[in-house]
């Protein structure tokens, strides 16, 4: 269990957590729906991506590492879709609260 991959994982996952924290602060503090969605999608893409990159050296085999990347892609896909749908609904209903 060498030191360098663990250090890399800790740094990457820590950076990912910072993005998650930023996204949560955005969700709580931004004034309207569209800017909150913007904050959340940053957490989805960058935050989860950095966490996944940090977990890649710790995966058991190549297949497990590939599954982690597939998880990230699927979360991005669904996050982007839901963000679009919420934004369209917001614009259609005229709500900005």
């Amino acid at each position, binding site marked *: 269990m060498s030191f360098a991959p663990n250090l890399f994982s800790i740094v990457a996952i820590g950076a990912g957590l910072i993005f998650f924290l930023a996204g949560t602060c955005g969700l709580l503090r931004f004034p309207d729906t569209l800017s909150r969605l913007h904050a959340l999608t940053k957490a989805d893409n960058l935050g989860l991506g950095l966490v996944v990159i940090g977990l890649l050296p710790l995966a058991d085999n190549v297949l497990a590492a590939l599954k982690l990347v597939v998880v990230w892609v699927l979360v991005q896909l669904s996050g982007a879709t839901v963000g679009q749908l919420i934004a369209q609904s917001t614009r259609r*209903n*005229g709500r900005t609260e």
Partner: protein
Amino acid sequence: MSTATLAGLTGAILAGVGLYGLIIHPDPLRRILAFNVLGSGVFLLFGIIARRGAAIGALADPVPQAMVITGIVVAFAATALAVALLIRLGAQTDPVVTQADKQDLARRADD
């Protein structure tokens, strides 16, 4: 305090919270929600009994786990039936709408 005991206490509190919501709300949909919270709390109690029954080869006793899986599926079926009854009842009678929901509706209509 082990994970199992902490999860068990969480399950006990969830059961209490769900029971409170079940009694206090006049709106049937909120009652269905609280009922689901109550149910998941009870399932957690099953879960800690499973975890405490770990043995060689099985990290958790499989029999309570199987019961919980069955329970989750049946609870979903019961919730679906309750929601269908609720919608049908709503089509026949005036719904129960609390002040808070009225304000929420008014606010959405204003924007």
